[in-house]
């Protein structure tokens, strides 16, 4: 009898461990995508004081470019056929990220530069309007059918301990770490220091000879590139098995709580916030469902990050790592 109970407990325990492990691993993968999105948003906000509501559209655009380059014209893969297909795909993805960065540059010059000094309301609205325009164009480019990205990982999974993780999810986390390291190195470089200076005090930085305009452009370019990376990884299996479609752009709104939790002007905060939100959503989806939680209605997991955000804001109105605003009267 006790043996049966033990076996039962063992089986139940194993199941619980499996569930926890899977929830955690998918939470980390989701968190990595949110962290990439949050990084881009925070970078743009820190440098130019603009919250980029068009981030999702840029992400979808980047994913489209990757899909087009990799599957339709096979660029630059066709010129380097001696390399393995994985590397070819990575090259296509890199080119897509670069193109999107250029798009970010153009956007900054055309739409954001004229809005310097305008009230917050207008600035918020212009990025929303940009989102509408870019999203419409991207939807038209994608066409009516969703486009798979042609990535080398496909539907492959690996078993790491009790968790079953898709190879693309591992790739996502690896790329996020690379992006983080890259950013950390960047902030130690000349332009990185210049960007930190501009974020800290724009006028003083300009007095030192730093071209604020160039920094803005750079911030938008990197931000857009990060958005594209996030877009590419959010269009892979298992998150979206059929690739980039007309709903990919809306994914980025789910990352907004991450930047608020972390603090709008903190890079570390963006990453931490991203992972918190990813894990919160994943755990809510795994544990707060089923008959006992049916009072929570439908799709509660999507609201969970906003609730966490609200709690954090009530305790720390500027986010976990954000700097408190000092305002002159």
């Amino acid at each position, binding site marked *: 009898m006790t043996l049966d109970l033990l076996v039962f407990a063992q089986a139940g325990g194993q199941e619980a461990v499996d569930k926890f492990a*899977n929830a955690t691993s*998918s939470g980390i993968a*989701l968190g990595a995508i949110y962290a990439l999105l949050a990084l881009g948003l925070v970078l743009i906000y820190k440098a130019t004081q603009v919250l980029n509501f068009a981030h999702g559209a840029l992400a979808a655009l980047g994913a489209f470019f990757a899909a087009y380059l990799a599957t339709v014209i096979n660029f630059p893969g066709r010129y380097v056929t001696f390399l393995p297909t994985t590397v070819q795909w990575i090259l296509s993805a890199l080119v897509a990220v670069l193109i999107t960065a250029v798009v970010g540059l153009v956007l900054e010059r055309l739409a954001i530069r004229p809005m310097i000094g305008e009230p917050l309301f207008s600035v918020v609205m212009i990025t929303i309007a940009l989102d509408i325009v870019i999203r419409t164009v991207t*939807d038209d480019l994608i066409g*009516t*059918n*969703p*486009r*798979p990205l042609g*990535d080398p*990982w*496909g*539907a492959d*999974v690996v078993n790491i301990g009790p968790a*079953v993780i*898709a190879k693309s999810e591992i790739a996502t986390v690896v790329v996020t770490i690379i992006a983080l390291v890259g950013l950390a190195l960047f902030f130690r470089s000349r332009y990185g220091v210049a960007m930190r200076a501009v974020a800290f005090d724009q006028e003083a930085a300009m007095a030192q000879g730093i071209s604020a305009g160039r920094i803005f452009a750079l911030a938008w370019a990197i931000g857009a590139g990060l958005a594209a990376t996030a877009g590419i990884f959010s269009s*892979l*299996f*298992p*998150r*979206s*098995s*059929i*690739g980039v*479609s*007309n*709903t990919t752009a*809306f994914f980025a709104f789910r990352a907004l709580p991450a930047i608020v939790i972390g603090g709008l002007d903190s890079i570390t905060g963006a990453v931490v916030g991203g992972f918190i939100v990813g894990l919160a*959503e*994943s755990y809510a*989806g*795994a544990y707060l*469902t*089923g008959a006992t939680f049916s009072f929570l209605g*439908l*799709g509660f*997991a*999507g609201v969970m990050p906003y609730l966490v955000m609200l709690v954090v804001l009530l305790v720390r109105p500027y986010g976990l790592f954000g700097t408190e605003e000092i305002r002159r009267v």
Partner: protein
Amino acid sequence: MKKLRIFVLVLALALVAAACSSDGDDTTTTTAGGDATETTVATETTAATETTVATETTAATETTVAPADLKTDFGVDVEAGTITVGQTADLTGPFAPLVAPILAGQQMYWAWVNGNGGIGGMEVLMETRDTNYQVEQHIAAYDEIRDLVVAISHTTGSPQTLAISDALEEDSMIAVPATWYSGWTDTNIAPTVLHTGNPYCLEAMNGLDWMVSVEAEEGNDAPTLAIASIPGDFGFDPMAGATMWAEINGIEIVYDGSGKIIPGQDQKPIADAIVASGADLVYVTTTPTTFSEVYGAALQQGFEAKWSGSGPTYNPAFLVSPIADAIQRDWYGTFYMQPWGGDSAGMALTMQLVEASGADIPANDYVGLGVVEAMIVHAALEAAYASGDMTRAGVLAALRTLDNVDFQGMAPAENYTGSTADQIQRAVTLWRPSVANLEAGGSGSEIVENDFVGPTAESFDFQEACFQF
């Protein structure tokens, strides 16, 4: 800077001026048959199909009614010689991938009809509005065209069509929905919305009967079932069918996620629940993208089962995505008519119209659906013309006399007279996804059986809609 502002102003004024000046005549958009060359090629190559479609109704089309005697109210302009049919379609929303080929099919069919004398010598024009699969936009779109058209040849979405069904009844306007909600067959709900093909709940029964017979062949006599769907009529109707099927056949439903799939949310919880239930059969009805999320998340956990769902849940794009191999293995597809490449005169005509038009439309099951929709409206309009009454009420009355609308083998013939039970369509086409089929130039749907009626659907006593709020 200043010049740009002036330009913006002028542009705005131009828009307003154009709107004011174009209130009457511009609203009939360009014809489906604007290009003369495309239709002549069609008539050259198939002599057989040329005349048969025109005579699909019982009334002879040679009857010429003098224009002065023809009664019309909206949508028919005898002097200009045009008949306008409307479409309230999802062009930008989740079902756009399916709607685009449907409308392409309609365009080509009407162009062909126009090339062959039109209806009573009058040309048929299309008036399309986008609804983005949203109820409010659908209502607004219908409001915009209700006084311009004589019939609605396409409307996307069950809840959306239901939302305008009162207005349709008020206008006595017939509407062909691209949805298979069982309420359209129920004569008490939406009397002017026409049914086509097998309704969702019976489709579910047929699909499940098929899957269960394959399971039995593989040695499993007591499979378990998991169901999940999007909320609304589109989701709840097939779920009602699946639930009734399970009750009748004594199959256990181990997970009931009806109405729990919310597009835009993370679908992993649903997938986890399906996997945790360990079901052998899964029946899911939702949008294609959302389905791919559920299926992908389940696949990641190594879940293997037989999957099926209502027709619009599947998108041929699955066959070129990472889930291609898995979906080939797992999906048991049902469709309301013959998929692309089917063996019938109607399908031959469709494939030929596509080729002749020269447009870049890949082989797709839904092009034929557009042709079927247009054929129904064609039959109604011809009958109405023959009876001399082409008011909307007249078209509705004419339609209600048609008991055998034939689609030349492309789809089962439809009966629009009699009671609910008389009009119900029980047969579906069974097909499986096949990459080989896709690569050979087909639409990726390998037909397994035409006109399949499972034992449950055969004996089901259909008196009213399977699901109603």
